[in-house]
């Protein structure tokens, strides 16, 4: 089988920003490698996002090792074509050795190294960097199978635009960044929208006249390390913050949705006999999100005071989330004439091709800050991989520096040790 195999020290799987940042770091260290990509560079941003999506991180934060945003709108938010261009330009700037249209089908351990099988040949290497993304598969809860046949089910990954939906009312399940953005856009298209809300993360787009990411950056929130945060499992599975990137820098919390006429209901608990049942815990999840937001704002205020930052707007607090009273506990798909359910219930990585025993019982990769529990195996681009910043494009800068340093030492120590 290895007759036609190519030998190379390192294989990077995936040419998103995280894989490319690692490629740049390895090139800096003169470590020969190849980047295998099933599509084209920035495939996820080209093919797996909805049409209107813009980053929720500001442009100035799109900073990768050796290159960053150079446009004239540092406070704006990139559209998907702009992100794809940005990453493609980056790949060219760093001369990343990308083999596109090459899908990895199996990675297994052999002779102290790894065999990487693809639909375009085999690579044999000492070290593998998994940079295949954190969001390959849309999560859909098991209860989805009880959805009546009259209702069209669409995942956030398959959704493109309200124009693809029929005119009937829509149930959006999930209130992370994705869920609130889709509820907002579908409501603006004139359709009636109900959004089912479990635990969520509320944040204002701007606070005291600065972007919330400016605050999180300055106040040290994004630099909290994976081995410092209270509960790393929780931190890694926190829903994305309710934010949207628009030219008017507007906030998109549940109150904004309520103002638009979107109906807020609790977490979807069950679907049976054509009826969806929602949790009665809505008031509590909203209360928790409000309390946590206020703690975050307090932290910002404290930091600003300590650092003596002037020219900020006045410190304020936002209205508590208005919870409908009584909130609806049931929705009949027939009576409410629901045409579509959008499952905005999160994403997860796909490791079906990974034939190395490094997954936990829930199918998650076991790793310590990106160093996987098998020698020479690394992962990057996951939520809170090494620090909170890792969840965002901007996190690759330091993560790739630290992981490539570890990888280099691994290669230098001699792989067979």
């Amino acid at each position: 089988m290895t007759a036609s195999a190519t030998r190379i020290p390192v294989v990077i799987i995936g040419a998103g920003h995280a894989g490319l940042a690692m490629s740049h770091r390895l090139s800096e260290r003169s470590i020969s490698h190849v980047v295998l990509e099933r599509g084209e560079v920035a495939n996820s941003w080209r093919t797996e996002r909805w049409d209107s999506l813009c980053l929720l991180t500001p442009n100035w934060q799109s900073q990768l090792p050796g290159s960053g945003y150079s446009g004239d709108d540092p406070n704006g938010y990139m559209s998907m074509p702009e992100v794809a261009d940005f990453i493609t330009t980056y790949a060219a700037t760093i001369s990343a050795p990308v083999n596109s249209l090459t899908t990895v089908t199996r990675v297994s351990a052999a002779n102290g190294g790894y065999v990487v099988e693809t639909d375009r040949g085999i690579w044999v290497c000492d070290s593998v960097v998994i940079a295949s993304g954190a969001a390959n598969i849309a999560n859909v809860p098991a209860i989805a199978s009880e959805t009546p046949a009259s209702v069209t089910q669409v995942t956030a990954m398959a959704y493109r635009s309200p124009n693809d939906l029929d005119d009937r009312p829509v149930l959006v399940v999930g209130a992370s960044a994705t869920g609130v953005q889709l509820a907002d856009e579908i409501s603006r298209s004139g359709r009636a929208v109900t959004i089912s809300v479990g635990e969520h993360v509320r944040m204002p787009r701007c606070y005291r006249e600065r972007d919330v990411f400016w605050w999180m950056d300055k106040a040290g929130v994004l630099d909290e390390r994976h081995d410092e945060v209270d509960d790393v499992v929780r931190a890694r599975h926190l829903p994305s913050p309710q934010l949207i990137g628009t030219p008017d820098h507007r906030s998109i919390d549940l109150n904004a949705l309520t103002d638009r006429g979107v109906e807020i209901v609790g977490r979807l608990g069950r679907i049976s006999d054509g009826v969806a049942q929602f949790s009665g815990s809505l008031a509590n999840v909203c209360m928790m999100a409000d309390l946590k937001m206020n703690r975050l704002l307090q932290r910002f205020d404290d930091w600003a005071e300590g650092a003596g930052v002037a020219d900020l707007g006045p410190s304020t607090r936002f209205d508590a989330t208005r919870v409908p009273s009584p909130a609806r506990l049931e929705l009949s798909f027939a009576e409410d004439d629901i045409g579509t359910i959008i499952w905005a219930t999160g994403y997860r990585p796909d490791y079906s091709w990974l034939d190395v025993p490094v997954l936990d019982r829930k199918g998650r990769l076991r790793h310590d800050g990106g160093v996987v529990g098998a020698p020479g195996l690394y992962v990057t681009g996951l939520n809170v991989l090494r620090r909170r910043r890792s969840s965002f494009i901007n996190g690759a800068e330091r993560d790739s520096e630290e992981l490539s340093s570890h990888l280099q030492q691994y290669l230098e120590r001699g792989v067979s040790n």
Partner: protein
Amino acid sequence: MTDIDTPVNNGVNTEALLGAREALSDAPEAAEFTWRANCSWVGGTFSQTTVDGFSGLGQEHHHKTPYSFDADHPECFASEDRGATPPEILLAALASCLTAGVASVAQHRQIQLRSVTATVEGKMNVLGILGADPDIRNGFNDVTVQFDIDADASREDIQAIVAQSQKRSAVYDMVTNPTRVAVEVS
């Protein structure tokens, strides 16, 4: 703030709970518990329920002593009122579950409690259980829990403790979310 010399003590061993969380995450089978209750009809609407054994951590356990609960309906329902109504027992379960949570969370967050009381109300329209109006549900329409907490903490911190106790409460979850219930005859 609490005196530095007096360690916070709400009587909850949170280290043990955190240790259990860690240990059970690695041994998920041991985390499977079964709780049981045995109910006997005495007469009329009066019944007695006893709890004693339960399983978990891969073995059988017994309470230090069996506990029993008397349930009946009040005289205005033409019963003899020899015990609490079952909905009241549910309210008791909810309040005690949340209260245990408040104590544990406060301990974990190093907040000394001085007193905690909860007043629970469940609103119910009995036309439902009487079968007189099919549009009215049998159970509670609304449950309210009013906590009165005296502790060394700000109002926001106390709100956060109460919110977290709801998040981690078994009974709160069972009351607010649908639960599959299979009732069979042997």
